């Protein structure tokens, strides 16, 4: 997927003014948060359930290489073919080759973030293999060429009129309608046709069980199960971190994932596939390929400071709790992953240089870390990226860097600090009116778009302390009032 992370501020500004987006954002995250709370409270002991999930993810990222090998062994012994892809291009080529060798003209797709990350749809379509999304929201975003607005409801903000128009254009409906039920039904009929003659299905993977070689998918519409069971050839695409040690772990993670995502105890469909159809079985694909995509993750894994990013199970809980996401929605993040999940992941996948706004657009409030069932410490990762950006040698931030050096000098020696105060105060006071500053030059403009700043008082606390200490005793009582 083409990244647009450099347009963060512009897109965010636009979304803040988009009334429809704002309506959805005022409803969606709070709504999901309530559902999540209800869902989580159905655990006998929600806190321990989260602890357990975090422990499972901790184990996964400690043992990832051996778990992946174990998964491969077991998947292969059950008849699956496991293919490793170093990067997006390799993964795309592998999948395209599978399609070409079988003369396949189209494939259906289950909603999957990894295939968005590697830009699989674009690659297949460019090379003559049509790729049809089958999740209702994804169908709409694909037709409208929109990035996902929300992880669970990628097209939830698109008005029915727009959906109707594009469905009409693509021949999915004959008459315009804004009735959501009719629109949904039309897509169902349209997709059934695709499933009926399906040669190849492509899905993501929510969990890959090392002990059994099983791939697990959760969904609510049944389209993934259709995509998995209808075709002759099934391709499952997963990133390294999807692996979990045992089936019990996978089941616990499913329980946690669904509760954190939509508040459901279990999604409407959970499908588990261990190898392709075996002799005597009535359904399932004849061949199963599992493509394991690295795309930069080995490096993320090797780096102790970034490894924790791989804990993420893409539940979306952090999006729903992030104050920034709740104001701007998914578009500004400019890539497959949005919200705090995207803020920690995209910079590592796309590079620190191109993603500065992502790791700086954060107040470090810590709500994401608190809610994350996988134990990702988002603020700490964002701070690491900020430090990496600063330590890069380059001309940019030159002024800021000298300023930081000056401030550091001042902070490390009180006399310089106090001297600085005496120099700054008259400058401050000149800007102030009635004890307040309403605007300031130099990079601080942003503060004053909606806020004032109090003037620097005549005496700092430091000076007040000295005044107080030096005052004679009765005075000292009175000085209390300063």
């Amino acid at each position: 997927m083409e990244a647009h992370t450099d347009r963060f501020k512009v897109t965010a500004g636009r979304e803040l003014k988009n009334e429809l987006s704002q309506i959805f954002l005022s409803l969606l995250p709070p709504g999901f948060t309530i559902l999540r709370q209800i869902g989580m409270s159905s655990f006998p002991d929600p806190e321990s359930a989260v602890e357990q999930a975090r422990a499972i993810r901790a184990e996964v990222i400690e043992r990832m290489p051996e778990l992946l090998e174990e998964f491969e062994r077991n998947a292969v012994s059950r008849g699956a073919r496991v293919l490793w892809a170093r990067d997006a291009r390799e993964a795309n080529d592998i999948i395209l080759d599978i399609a070409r060798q079988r003369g396949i003209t189209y494939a259906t797709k289950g909603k999957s973030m990894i295939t968005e990350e590697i830009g699989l749809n674009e690659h297949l379509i460019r090379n003559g293999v049509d790729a049809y999304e089958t999740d209702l929201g994804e169908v709409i975003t694909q037709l409208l060429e929109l990035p996902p607005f929300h992880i669970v409801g990628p097209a939830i903000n698109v008005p029915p009129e727009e959906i109707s128009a594009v469905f009409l254009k693509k021949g999915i409906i004959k008459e315009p309608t804004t009735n959501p039920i009719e629109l949904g039904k039309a897509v169902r009929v349209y997709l059934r046709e695709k499933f009926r003659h399906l040669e190849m299905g492509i899905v993501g993977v929510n969990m890959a069980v090392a002990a059994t070689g099983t791939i697990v998918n959760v969904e609510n519409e049944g389209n993934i199960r259709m995509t998995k069971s209808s075709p002759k050839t099934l391709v499952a695409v997963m990133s390294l971190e999807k692996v979990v040690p045992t089936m019990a772990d996978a089941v616990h993670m499913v329980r946690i994932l669904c509760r954190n995502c939509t508040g459901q105890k279990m999604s409407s469909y959970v499908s588990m596939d261990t190898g392709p159809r075996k002799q005597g079985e009535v359904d399932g694909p004849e061949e199963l390929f599992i493509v394991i995509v690295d795309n930069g993750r080995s490096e993320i894994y090797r780096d102790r400071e970034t490894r924790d990013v791989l804990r993420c199970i893409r539940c979306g809980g952090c999006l729903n709790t992030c104050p920034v996401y709740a104001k701007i929605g998914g578009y500004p993040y400019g890539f497959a992953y949005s919200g705090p999940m995207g803020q920690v992941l995209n910079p590592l996948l796309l590079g620190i240089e191109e993603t500065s706004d992502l790791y700086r657009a954060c107040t470090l409030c810590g709500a994401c870390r608190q809610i994350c069932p996988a134990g990702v410490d988002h603020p700490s990762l964002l701070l690491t990226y900020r430090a990496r950006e600063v330590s890069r040698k380059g001309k940019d931030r030159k002024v800021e860097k000298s300023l930081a050096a000056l401030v550091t000098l001042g902070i490390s020696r009180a006399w310089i600090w106090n001297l600085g105060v005496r120099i700054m105060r008259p400058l401050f006071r000149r800007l102030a009116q009635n004890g307040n500053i309403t605007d300031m030059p130099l990079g601080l403009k942003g503060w004053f778009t909606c806020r004032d700043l109090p003037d620097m008082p005549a005496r700092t606390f430091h000076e007040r302390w000295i005044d107080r200490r030096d005052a004679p005793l009765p005075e000292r009582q009175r000085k209390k009032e300063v």
Partner: protein
Amino acid sequence: MVSLFIPCTVDLLMPEIGTAACELLEHLGEQPVYHQDQTCCGQPLFNVGYRDQARRVAKHFIEVFGRDERIVSPSGSCVSMVKHHYPELLSHEPSWYGRARELAGRVFELSQYIVDVLGVTDVGAAFDGSVTYHESCHVLRSLGVSDQPKKLIGAVRGARYVELNNATACCGFGGEFAVGFPEISQALVKDKATNFLNTGADVLLLCEPGCLLNINGYLHRNHPEKKAMHLASFLAGNMKEA
């Protein structure tokens, strides 16, 4: 002996909060000391990404406060900086790391100190009016301090406590964030202010100077009749004369 750690925002822009903290502690029988060598904890540098610089600042802080039995500050985020980030910053220098770890256990946010260490909830203040409380992110989520300020508020005679809607939502300050992403920050502080106005409370209390600058800056511009206040100022200002 308790040592006052006055954050730079308080020192430079809101010294009355420092004075209030000092008065409160004295009123409770403490004799706070204030090291004149202190400056800033380095949080702004650290948050922007200047780690080497923040490390130097951390060492300065440890030199200044290293021998104190207990250190108290009217800022949750600065306490969190010292408690959580100093050890992390100095993790590659064993002797400094040891000192940072040791210091971490002795730093307290003011309300936490009063309630948990001194065991006081009623400081002897009275206020005829209604109040509400904003749960600043670092106070709440980094330090887990939430009951303490509420207990202190609850014990103020005459004060009626009104629940703030979305009290735990971020006010949109975030230091550099407020300057770098003004529109998003504005949307957040506007929500906070609106929730405050909707309570009808006379004053919004909090324990974090950063949030205070942000919320009061916004209120001053848009709703000058309303204001937020640091809990220390509120308590000290409404203390009955002993």
